[in-house]
């Protein structure tokens, strides 16, 4: 079963790798599924308007900031074992050690991750995911996808999300009822994040003339930035091109 699943992923990966990777210009958009993506975007926006936005407003009003921070710390802490695996797969061993040390410290001294003493010691979060691991192995980002309830992604990002779920060590160590609670915690944290970044999300979703296109460029540019595919100076457009 596991072998079959991994085999399927491998076939997809070799297909994507054949599409070749390399740095992508900052404004590059590859969106052959735009029509479907736009329909999903409207669905996501409706879900946000009727459920997520009101829930996050209530959450922000009812739950004190200290508790919201603790939930956020705790959810971020749970992501660290998976991130450690990805750092190892990427050959970034120093980052893997820092992430593992952060997890050890915050899970113990930080009371199961509610607090973040590791950052005070300079052991900052080094976020990564399997999408980045795929990029390190030369897999191209592939077409843009907007996923139901999740939002912006790419083919590579989506495969990475599935893989992240499979390689997360926690799910093999934590027994069943607790595992579901942790899933719930991640859900609550999502509501919290929607509250923390409400100005930005509202700007993007409700104040822009084409929220789909705005979200797409924001997602793609931010994702490329997080993957250290820095703006290449040679790729900068001519700033005086429209000096008419």
């Amino acid at each position, binding site marked *: 079963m596991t072998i079959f699943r991994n085999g399927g992923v491998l076939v997809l990966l070799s297909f994507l790798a054949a599409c070749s990777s390399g740095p992508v210009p900052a*404004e590059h958009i590859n969106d052959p599924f735009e029509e479907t993506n736009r329909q999903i975007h409207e669905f996501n926006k409706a879900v946000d308007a009727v459920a997520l936005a009101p829930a996050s407003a209530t959450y922000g009003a009812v739950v004190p900031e200290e508790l919201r921070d603790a939930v956020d710390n705790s959810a971020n802490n749970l992501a660290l074992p998976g991130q450690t695996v990805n750092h190892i797969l990427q050959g970034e061993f120093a980052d893997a050690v820092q992430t593992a040390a952060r997890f050890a410290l915050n899970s113990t001294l930080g009371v199961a991750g509610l607090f973040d003493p590791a950052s005070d010691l300079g052991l900052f979060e080094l976020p990564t995911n399997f999408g980045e691991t795929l990029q390190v192995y030369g897999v191209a980002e592939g077409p843009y996808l907007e996923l139901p309830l999740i939002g912006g992604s790419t083919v590579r990002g989506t495969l990475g999300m599935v893989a992240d779920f499979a390689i997360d060590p926690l799910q093999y160590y934590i027994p069943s009822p607790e595992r579901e609670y942790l899933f719930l915690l991640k859900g609550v944290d999502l509501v919290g994040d929607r509250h923390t970044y409400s*100005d930005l999300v509202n700007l993007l979703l409700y*104040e*822009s003339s084409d929220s789909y296109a705005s979200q797409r460029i924001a997602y793609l540019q931010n994702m490329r*930035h997080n993957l250290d595919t820095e703006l290449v*100076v040679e790729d900068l457009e001519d700033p005086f091109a429209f000096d*008419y």
Partner: protein
Amino acid sequence: MHSITKNPALQRRAFLAGAGGLMLTTALPTFAVALTEDAAVGFIRTVVADVHKIINSGKSEAQMLVDFEAFFGNRSEVSLIAKTALGAPGRSASRNQLAAYIQAFQGYISRKYGRQFRDFAGAEISVISSRYAGSKGVLVKSYVNAQHRSDYDLEWWVIEVNGRPKMFDLIIEGISLISTERIEIGAMLESFGGDIDKMTAKLLVS
């Protein structure tokens, strides 16, 4: 990319580019001269000081927006940003249409981004490094340590216009203001069937 510590090779290149540009300046007064990295970094330090002053002034949001618009008009090349966001459709616009659009764009963009500043009282922006891009200007990287939210990267694209450094683009966690506004202005123009005057009227109230 290199850190703020001096890089002789890059400085020499910047100097030569500057010298080359100087000769051109005599012939073509408005031609952009390549900016040195040091000048761009110094300029961004001034800009950061301006931003710190506004966000920590303790003024009301409305007053901060006024300060921000003045800051934006002074430190960035607003007309070029506005024209870049509008792109090709601007070429066929009349002089008056374009002037009205640029004026409206300045207010719109100052309100839109100025409003984001209200959460940033106490934030600390530190300049980290810079990259030289020849005649395209200099990218200056900074790091924003904000209270109550994650830290983030803020990159400033500095160009030289008529011998003075100006902001051209702001890149927040990889997201370019120019790219964002190009999409926004494009979508707005399309929704008015390509009518720049109607779009300008909309910008005035956005």
